[in-house]
């Protein structure tokens, strides 16, 4: 999945990767493309994990893991970092999801349970400010419940913010007309994707897959 996302990131894009699975996208940037990764804790030009033993506890990513800085990187403070995010300067943000709705609402920060410790971090800033929001997630929960739903039941991270969803079963665009399946995984049928989805899908596999996404970045 991370490889499919990476294939849709154009040369020269500025990209923020959410904590967890989305971080894997950095490993799959196709040869010949230069993509600049931002981490909201204050670094543009984040490089791969450091060689074991050379970690610097003061050079970390938003997931608080040790990283490196590429040549041409820049450090900045938090207000400048979020000015970058909230001012619409980042091209793509790849995030995980608990639920995504047919309208592109995203829930990925809280189960809303009474005794949960609420913790939001930068998720609401990213979905409000970044030009394109890509979701990278398993198609269903571990219990088999759909994550793509008509209406989110968990507290929202943002309303109508998601542009595209990459799952283990399909690539789905959030369009003004609803959820449009652009691609399905090998051996998976459109019917199966629909069955495991809590919202109506349309089959738009004939449209070339990169059509609507990259051209206006």
């Amino acid at each position, binding site marked *: 999945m991370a490889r499919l996302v990476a294939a849709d990131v154009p040369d020269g894009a500025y990209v923020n990767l959410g904590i967890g699975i989305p971080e894997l996208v950095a490993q799959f940037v196709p040869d010949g493309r230069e993509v600049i990764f931002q*981490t*909201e*804790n*204050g*670094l543009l030009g984040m490089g791969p994990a450091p060689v074991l033993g050379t970690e*610097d*506890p*003061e*050079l*970390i990513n938003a997931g*608080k893991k040790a990283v490196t*800085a590429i040549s041409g990187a820049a*450090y*900045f*403070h*938090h*207000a400048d*970092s*979020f*000015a970058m*995010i*909230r001012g619409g300067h980042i091209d793509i943000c790849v995030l995980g999801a608990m639920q995504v709705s047919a309208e592109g*609402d995203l829930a990925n920060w809280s189960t809303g349970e009474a*005794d949960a*410790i*609420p*913790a*939001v*971090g*930068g*998720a*609401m*800033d990213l979905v*409000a*400010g970044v030009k394109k929001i890509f979701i990278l997630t398993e198609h269903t929960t571990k219990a088999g419940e759909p994550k793509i739903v008509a209406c989110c039941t968990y*507290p*929202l*991270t*943002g*309303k*109508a913010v998601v542009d595209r969803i990459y799952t283990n079963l399909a690539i789905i665009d959030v369009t003004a007309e609803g959820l449009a399946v652009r691609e399905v995984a090998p051996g998976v049928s459109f019917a199966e994707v629909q069955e495991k989805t809590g919202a109506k899908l349309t089959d738009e596999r004939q449209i070339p897959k990169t059509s609507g996404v990259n051209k206006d970045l």
Partner: protein
Amino acid sequence: MINKRAASVAAAVADIHDGATVMIGGFGEAGSPIELIHALIDHGARNLTVVSNNTGSGRVGLAALIANGQVAKMICSYPRSTNSMVFPELYRKGCIQLELVPQGTLAERIRAGGAGIPAFFTATSVGTVLAKGKELRSFSDRDYVMEYGLRADFALVKAEKADRHGNLVYNKTARNFGPIMCMAARTAIVQAKEFVEVAGIDPENVVTPGIFVSRVVVVAQPAQESQLVKEGRCYP
């Protein structure tokens, strides 16, 4: 002559009063001014409102300050992380208040406080529970919430180098909240690894100009939170 150097971490935090609002720098352990926080524990000021991105980990640093019952309220974006149990426990018991703020809004509110801006509008959190009760307003057909600038009585910040004017540079991603917290606090207290001559920082490379800093104390070999947690250390 201007010389903002304080003799010790104890002297640097001595006037933090009960009920003060204290901004504490750091994103996780990066930039966390552990020695200043420990001095604040020794000092004992209580009923504090603390503004910090996280709530610390293990039983050292910010987590220890909270465990010691000195913090009445946290204003933060992410009070949950690996090895964070002190805050969750007290929060579930109702012993500590929480104002949860999106990370970018938190940063912008601190910067606004330091820049004399009482309020501003942002698209972040619109349509979510964190916008509940907040003023909504539309500009060019998009909705925004109004957020307030945030100031503090004190800031505790970790820097890499400082001079006697209080000019600062930071180390890599440990910069995070330091510069804006120095701006937003009436008294910014800084622990720096190194104290340099006034000519020791190129004027082009100063990150925090000295005007925003009240005191500097040298902590040449600051502890790393993750290391202390790994060793199972507790403070005090």
